[in-house]
């Protein structure tokens, strides 16, 4: 009988999974970040050099700034796009069947890998890519536009493409839970489209917007492959910096960056949670 199993045993599987796959790796990273290293080996110990190196260099600060900039721009665009798409799906598509079909349509691109979806931009945006040829063919420009690929533009474009759905889903979820009679009550009180949006829909969709923001911000902050591929190696991000350290076998340096990044992202998440109460969405 279930009742005879002690409580600690019932909690054990989850505790074990979290312990082995979350706590131990993080603890390892934290421990290694204090180790010393030379060209060939890791030297267990407790030194602060890694942090001093990481935080003392101007390039680190610049890289963090650039990563934050990517995160903020991507966040703003995906929030706007995600909110609009979710609003359309939740409030304008009235048939449940169409809602389902359109929602599935949004998720289909996710059946392929991130890398493939990113790389498919390259022939489209390149110097002799489809877009440049089309623009030149239409006579809108007489020389290929270079900013389209291997630039901040293409990095942000790829981020938006990859992560907008992470906004759409939670916002759509909260919107579907908004009682439709609230919208009618607002109209009854004289609210127009704009007032319904600002006074009813947005406040009630805030938890979904917060959850989506957490997804997007953490994904962008931790990314290295998108920045590397889409900027053609010209832009830096914290993830790229860690990759570089690791390819030089400087694991403690990479670990120190990882710990700092973790702290920064946790602070950002804490800031989001301070503004919006997401508990009732969980």
């Amino acid at each position: 009988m279930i009742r005879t199993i002690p409580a600690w045993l019932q909690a054990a599987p989850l505790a074990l999974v979290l312990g082995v796959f979350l706590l131990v790796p993080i603890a390892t990273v934290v421990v290694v970040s204090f180790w010393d290293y030379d060209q060939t080996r890791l030297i267990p110990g407790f030194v602060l050099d890694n942090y001093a190196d990481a935080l003392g260099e101007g390039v680190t600060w610049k890289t963090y700034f650039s990563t934050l900039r990517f995160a903020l721009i991507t966040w703003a665009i995906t929030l706007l796009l995600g909110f609009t798409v979710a609003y359309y799906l939740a409030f304008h598509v009235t048939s449940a069947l169409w809602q389902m079909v359109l929602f599935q349509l949004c998720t289909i691109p996710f059946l392929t890998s991130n890398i493939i979806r990113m790389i498919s931009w390259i022939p489209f945006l390149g110097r002799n890519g489809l877009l440049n040829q089309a623009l030149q063919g239409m006579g809108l420009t007489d020389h290929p536009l270079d900013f389209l690929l291997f630039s901040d533009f293409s990095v942000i474009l790829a981020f938006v493409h990859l992560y907008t759905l992470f906004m759409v889903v939670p916002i759509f979820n909260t919107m579907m839970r908004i009682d439709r009679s609230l919208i009618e009550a607002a109209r009854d009180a004289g609210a127009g489209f704009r007032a319904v949006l600002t006074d009813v829909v947005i406040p009630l969709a805030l938890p979904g917007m917060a959850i989506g923001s957490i997804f997007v911000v953490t994904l962008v902050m931790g990314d290295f492959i998108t920045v590397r591929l889409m900027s053609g190696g010209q832009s830096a991000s914290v993830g790229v910096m860690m990759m570089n350290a690791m390819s030089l076998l400087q694991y403690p340096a990479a670990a120190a960056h990882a710990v700092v990044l973790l702290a920064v992202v946790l602070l950002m998440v804490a800031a989001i949670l301070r503004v919006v109460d997401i508990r009732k969405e969980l």
Partner: protein
Amino acid sequence: MPAEVGIELIAVSKRYGAVTAVDAIDLRIPAGAYCCLIGPSGCGKTSTLRMIAGHEEVSSGDILLDGRNITALPPAGRGTAMMFQNYALFPHLTCLDNVAFSLKMRGMGRAERHEQARAMLARVHLEELAERRPAQLSGGQQQRVALARALITNPRALLLDEPLSALDPFLRGRMREELKRLQRELGITFIHVTHSQDEALALADLVVVMEGGRILQADAPRAVFQQPRTEFVARFMGGHNILAGVGRGGEVRLDFGAIPLPAAPDGPLRIAIRTDRMRLDAALPYQLPGRISAVEYHGLHVRLGLEDADGNAHSLLLTEAEFFARPLALGDAVAAGFTADDVHLLAT
């Protein structure tokens, strides 16, 4: 002098594709009247209310409020206010901001609208809960906030969609009194959709019985109950037994006798007899024979189910003393007596 007309519906219809929810209804509700729309689910009562409120487009016909055609106006431009079935209070706003919402929409400043909202909350005795969120209130309190929110615009008509159905029976009785009191004090027209006969009879000046998108009868509560026009109204309002008979030469012939009824047309017809007028008294002139099919003790009275020879179910209401003076058991053969005065002829 006829009472001034508050709300008038002229051949109002609502069609959803091929389905007609409301079928060309005409209705005049006197200004300042308490009107209840009643009927089974899907009868069109809620669609009618929502059309008056402006939340449902009118397919054809006109709606007039105080002589002004409001058919095409937006909800807030009509002079009506709606109270929703589940109250539809904004969960993210305090009670005060909920009540002040429509004033905010009109662009009124914060201090002024809060002052007015506070006064309105005082009117429904909730001023001390102004800063609470709706989720922190009981059902009855939420209802009063919804009422205050609807009334703050000084509407000429308040539209209530099943306002009492979410409350427990005790609270329902109290809120019923409060609604009536408010309506008397404000002197505005209330239109109240309900599926409860008790509610309609207790509150309304005008009871409108609907079925299949049509109005079957619109009358004072006592008239609706005492002189139901059709079999449906009699059955729906309850408290009546329906008997089938044949009219001929000013009398109604039933299986067990002929009752003189000068108004009766020739041909098959139906009559209604109130359940409290049928007595287990062999001295009464007409006796409907049957068997006891149910005995329900209701406290103040006892309801007997009576099944006649054709298998039709009827009811008798006896006072408690009457029943226990001569208790009956299931299956007992009895006869329910009544007089010609108790017979009400139904339209066919």
